């Protein structure tokens, strides 16, 4: 199935999926429900404080629900994700509904315990399903990310488009050897922002005259952050995968020297293209018969050595030819001369020379400033 998706000359290096403990944040939500359910059951039925809850069968449910919702609010604030609160709210409302429907009010604490276990098991299964929906394929050309239970999402990033790699390994990751790797693309995909907001209000005064003040502030920090299906989330073995991705990126990113070479080649191609165009133009202009011969010869000897060409352009013969051409052709000749000079002078600057040039430029700029100041 995966092999069909590969491109031409593409080879698969690794197929990965997140470590079972990499979604511990979600699993903790389920663990909390089960632990708190057991605690309420023990507290209201078996502990020394059991008599406090003996009067009203609704007390255990109220205690359980209040703490559950409070935990939901705290977790939502910490994780900046209100889904957690609404999830706990749904769990609580479902419990109340089921209790009413089945008339289990008298055994509310036992019901809470069993209900907590059932809800947690469902939660664990959903988390596991979500985890298994993730698939990361590392090939020799790109990384493919896949994920999502109902909505299938896919992201592909080529190694030459990766600008930065963010890697993180938490405590559990360090213990069990998994970690998360976020490839940040040149367009900024993989970058997110953490926002914090603080606000406070003060109300003073009596009922007749009141003073109200409000102050707030926010902060936004750019940080590598992505959905689990857009990053290599909790991959195992972390060190090997990180090394593999880094090697791949390194092999696809040209070095400074290679970049300079490419730039130089581009310049050369441009010059040659311009020269070819000029030569074509020169031929199309139909010069006098007397001078057609040397020009044709020149066209045929297009690939001859530079020195010979220069001689043709600058020698007496050329001067004589120039005299025979139309003024447009003289312009073409001059342009060609300039291009040849440019081609000769164009070269790859070694790093030392570049530095020296930069220093010279800086010195010039400084001296310019001084002059301006004077």
């Amino acid at each position: 199935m995966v092999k069909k998706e590969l491109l031409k000359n593409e080879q698969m290096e690794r197929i990965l999926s997140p470590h079972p403990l990499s979604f511990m944040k979600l699993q903790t939500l389920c663990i909390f429900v089960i632990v708190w359910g057991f605690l309420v059951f023990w507290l209201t039925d078996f502990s020394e404080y059991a008599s406090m809850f003996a009067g009203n069968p609704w007390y255990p449910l109220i205690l359980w629900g209040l703490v559950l919702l409070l935990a939901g609010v705290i977790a939502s604030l910490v994780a900046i994700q209100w889904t957690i609160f609404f999830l706990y709210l749904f769990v609580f409302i479902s419990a109340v509904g089921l209790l009413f429907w089945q008339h289990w009010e008298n055994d509310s604490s036992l019901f809470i315990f069993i209900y907590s276990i059932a809800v947690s098991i469902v939660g664990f299964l959903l988390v596991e399903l979500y985890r298994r929906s993730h698939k990361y394929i590392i090939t020799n050309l790109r990384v493919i990310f896949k994920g999502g239970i109902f909505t299938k999402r896919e992201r592909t990033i080529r190694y030459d488009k990766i600008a930065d790699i963010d890697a993180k390994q938490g405590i559990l990751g360090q213990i069990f050897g998994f970690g998360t790797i976020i490839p940040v693309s040149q367009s900024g995909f993989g970058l997110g922002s953490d926002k914090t907001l603080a606000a406070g209000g003060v109300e003073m005064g009596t009922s007749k005259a009141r003073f109200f003040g409000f102050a707030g502030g926010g902060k936004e920090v750019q940080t590598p952050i992505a959905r689990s299906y857009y990053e290599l989330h909790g991959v195992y073995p972390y060190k090997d995968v990180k090394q593999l991705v880094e090697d791949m990126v390194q092999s696809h990113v040209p070095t400074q020297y290679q970049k300079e070479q490419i730039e130089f080649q581009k310049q050369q191609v441009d010059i040659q293209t311009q020269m070819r165009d000029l030569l074509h133009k020169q031929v199309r202009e139909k010069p006098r018969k007397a001078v057609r011969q040397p020009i044709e010869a020149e066209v045929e000897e297009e690939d001859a050595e530079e020195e010979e060409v220069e001689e043709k352009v600058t020698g007496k013969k050329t001067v004589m030819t120039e005299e025979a051409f139309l003024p447009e052709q003289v312009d073409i000749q001059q342009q060609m001369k300039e291009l040849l000079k440019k081609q000769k002078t164009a070269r790859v600057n070694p790093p030392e020379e570049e530095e020296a040039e930069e220093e010279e430029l800086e010195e010039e700029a400084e001296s310019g400033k001084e002059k301006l100041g004077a």
Partner: protein
Amino acid sequence: MANVPLNIDVLVIAAFAPILGVIAFWFLQLFMIEIQKRMLSRLRHRHEAFCRFTNYIGILFQAICQALGYTVTRSGIASFKVTVSEEQVEPKKEKEGVFDWISRSFLLFGPFFLPAGLVLLISYFIIGKGFVYLTPVDYTFVESLTGFWLSLSTLASEYINFLVNIDLLNPLHVGFLCVLLFFGLGIRPSYIGEGRKEKIDMFHDLRQIKDHLIEKPWYIAVIILILYMFYILSLFINPVLYIGLFTIFGWLSLTAIIAIFLTFPLLLLLYATDEIRPRWHIIPFLTVILSYVLARVVLFYYPTQKVNGISILIMLLSTFLITMILIKYKKTNRFKPTPKMKHLRDSDGKKRTIKK
């Protein structure tokens, strides 16, 4: 002022009784740590994550102790980093002399006593009894030593009583047991190396401490003098103060010993399950939970005395029996090479199928 007889035993020798007691228990703690470390290092190749976890706890406490040392000496903390393999705590100001010595003392001695101190604090709320001092009458060396021993034995018996009658359906008891196991795996100063060549053992710890103490003999002399002054003062103010101070250190060592001792059954269970075939080795762990719950349910309908103790006994016996049966009939294949196959690679990167 108490009636203190003025003789050499009372004025000089008796002062060393609690110090000797602390040193004896500390050595016992060191010995237990060494046994635990050796057991863990033998488990490492099969239970990498477990050993990393225990390392992390140990290194975390070591880092906390170092940071505490820098805080006490007002050096400040510039950076604090803890991973499963190393810790890095750097001071804001590099201090020398006595401050540097105190900082390093925290680093060397802290990991032995800080985790144990936290467990002792929790046990005060859970156990509550057993924290007793013996008020001296004759102020002799033997009496001080006996008093020290009595304080420790009282606490030890309370611990044993608690553990024998522990109610594993009580969240507080389960929580305390988890704390004991958690800290028990981390009450040690040095780290379990990945390679066998790395020899960080009891002698390594002792050598480090010896070097540290020999480095500044004057500081040791001053500390002994201060302690002696404190002893003399306490003789005339309240003799329990001096014995009490050292008894606390004794309790810390005792707590550490009990915590480490509790981890041994867990490590032995891991050893035993390694002998069982992969699909079956989860059964002993399930037996631990199921047998206890089953025992409690049965004893709920057929009430008897010492329900908790009997349940614990049933749990231990059934786990032992099931594990032994599994080892006998479902023993793992001995011909399997112990290191993972994927680790066996040549230097050129080609995979090998046999061990070199």
